[in-house]
């Protein structure tokens, strides 16, 4: 996928939507990489005991996938200058061979100075919006 130039990105430009699979092993790997070993991200017994339907993904993993959606589009992992989200629903990850799917989409809302654009991002899993108010400022070439 060729990354867009600043001149190509206009208000209303849609980023190509992506789907990311999240399995239990991804949660274990993210726990190790991030240092967040909260038990609700790997222990089904404890997750259910605190009222969750099952083990849930780290909110920061969901945000990281949405960040990857932006950096892959821009072609540079350093291109995201600002990124903020609200975690509106958990990504529930069953213990099977499919796990959960996170669907991410985005739209350029505004052209800014310095070759930057504002992007609104949406992320859904199992029919629920898992991120809301997700907005980024991305620098393009």
């Amino acid at each position: 996928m060729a990354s867009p130039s600043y001149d190509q990105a206009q208000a209303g430009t849609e980023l190509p939507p992506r789907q990311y699979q999240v399995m239990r092993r991804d949660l274990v790997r993210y726990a190790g990489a991030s240092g967040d070993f909260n038990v609700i991200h790997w222990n089904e017994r404890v997750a259910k005991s605190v009222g969750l339907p099952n083990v849930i993904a780290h909110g920061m993993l969901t945000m990281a996938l949405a960040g990857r959606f932006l950096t892959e589009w821009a072609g540079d992992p350093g291109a995201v200058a600002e990124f903020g989200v609200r975690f509106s629903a958990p990504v529930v990850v069953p213990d099977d061979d499919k796990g959960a799917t996170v669907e991410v989409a985005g739209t350029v809302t505004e052209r800014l100075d310095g070759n930057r654009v504002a992007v609104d991002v949406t992320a859904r899993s199992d029919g629920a919006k898992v991120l809301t108010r997700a907005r980024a400022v991305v620098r393009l070439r």
Partner: protein
Amino acid sequence: MAINTAYIGRTFEPSEPYEVSRVKIREFADAIGEPSPLCRDRAAAEAAGYPDVIAPPTFAIVVSSAGSARVTHDPDLGVNYAMVVHGEQSFTHARPLRAGDVVVAQSTIEDIRPIGSMTALTTVTEIRTVDGEHVCTARSTLVERGA
């Protein structure tokens, strides 16, 4: 309200210095599926204009957590962590974190406010190099559900 509102505005001690390594950046990029060679290959990062391999944008949580731990581990703040969920998160980057950075994270409690039966705790964490260069501002809101 369970959380002590006298803490609003309080700035905590900075974290111990954290040295960003190429190995840790690669590990984090692998964990989130970020495929870019700029997170793995110094020559590729240099060709793109960076001094060394760069971290994905949300890697900053690894560093900012060290600062916000000073907040969340304060026994007098009165947070019940069994009831806490991550409500909001944002990052403003002056530049990407990169291998070789030695950074500290310092947190300030920006706000503590009720939302119905819940309490929201917003913390702003500044990430700076040990030389004083500002790299990233991380803002995090934790929500404590009512008991």
